[in-house]
């Protein structure tokens, strides 16, 4: 949980696309108050699959990516034949 935020604007907003465990993901991070927040979605269909927080962007993203990779690794592809 971020430190109590009473009226802050998101700063240093950044969005980028990567691949993790064979799937496209969008990684969004920004600073809110004194903490960085990160959210990761699975691009298609766009569901958020992980969050992270930290005192730096790197820490927030590392935490979110770790959680995202665990979840994505459990997704099975099925043969259509």
């Amino acid at each position, binding site marked *: 949980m*971020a430190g109590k935020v009473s009226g802050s604007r*998101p700063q240093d907003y950044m969005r980028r696309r990567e691949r993790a465990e064979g799937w496209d993901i969008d990684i969004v991070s920004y600073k809110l108050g004194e903490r960085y927040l990160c959210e990761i979605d699975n691009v298609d269909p766009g*569901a958020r699959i992980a969050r992270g927080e930290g005192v730096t962007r790197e820490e927030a993203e590392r935490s979110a990516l770790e959680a995202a990779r665990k979840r994505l690794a459990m997704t099975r592809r099925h043969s259509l034949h």
Partner: protein
Amino acid sequence: MGTYAHPEVLVDTEWVAQHAQDPNVRLVEVDVDTKSYEQGHIRGALAWNWSEELSDPVTRDIIPKESFERLMERSGIANDTTVVLYGDNNNWFAAWAFWQMKIYGHDDVRLMNGGRKKWIEEGRELVQDIPTVQPATYRAKEPDYSIRAFLPEVQRQVEEGKAALVDVRSPAEFTGEILAPPGLSETAQRGGHIPGAHNIPWGQACNEDGTFKSADELKDLYQRQEVTPDKPVVAYCRIGERSSHTWFVLRYLLGYPDVKNYDGSWTEWGNLVRAPIERGQAGART
């Protein structure tokens, strides 16, 4: 340039910034949980947890009328309150709440175009303060199920072939390659789609910033796939939240007269013993 059929149900982020403190406007952030809300939300907004407050986990149904009335009352919503919904996850669960509020007959409910994503991308203020709410009195109408499809109706539509079924999931879910969106729990025994469904993923209705495409673009998107206003339309996805988003587009932005959200969706149909399905692209019945 065409206009939306019901532009009054959509407000932009600037409108919300100007009206969030209006005493007759209740702003609610809706998501599958309230974690994003707890990190920071629009000043004055309450939170609704889809899993716990809008759904009944025992009956796998929307909450009953009495529970809906209590939710409105403790949210400070009276029958004449203007309710503005927004959320994370591309407004999917906000669209569900919109649909549910229409089932129970709330008159003035709107979506914030672009949802939480656009608000944050614009660098607008977020707070963690939870507003103090004066409880209201609320009387819901009897549920209007003309906007909700249950399983028997969908089965009949499949047999008759007169309705347009719109599967708004991703192509990989539609074909059966995956049983749930990457990273989410599988909730069906098998993959594929309801026979005869058109695959028009929800996101095709949106711009990159999460706002809805223009009326002309939306009209073209659906009509070139034979989803036209002269026939009944049933939208579905996995659990009914993405299809609420598409239901909103078809019913309120394009003004289709007969659109239903099948909230049982693939989690219901995909688990039915002996129900026909198709795998791969449309038309390959199993």
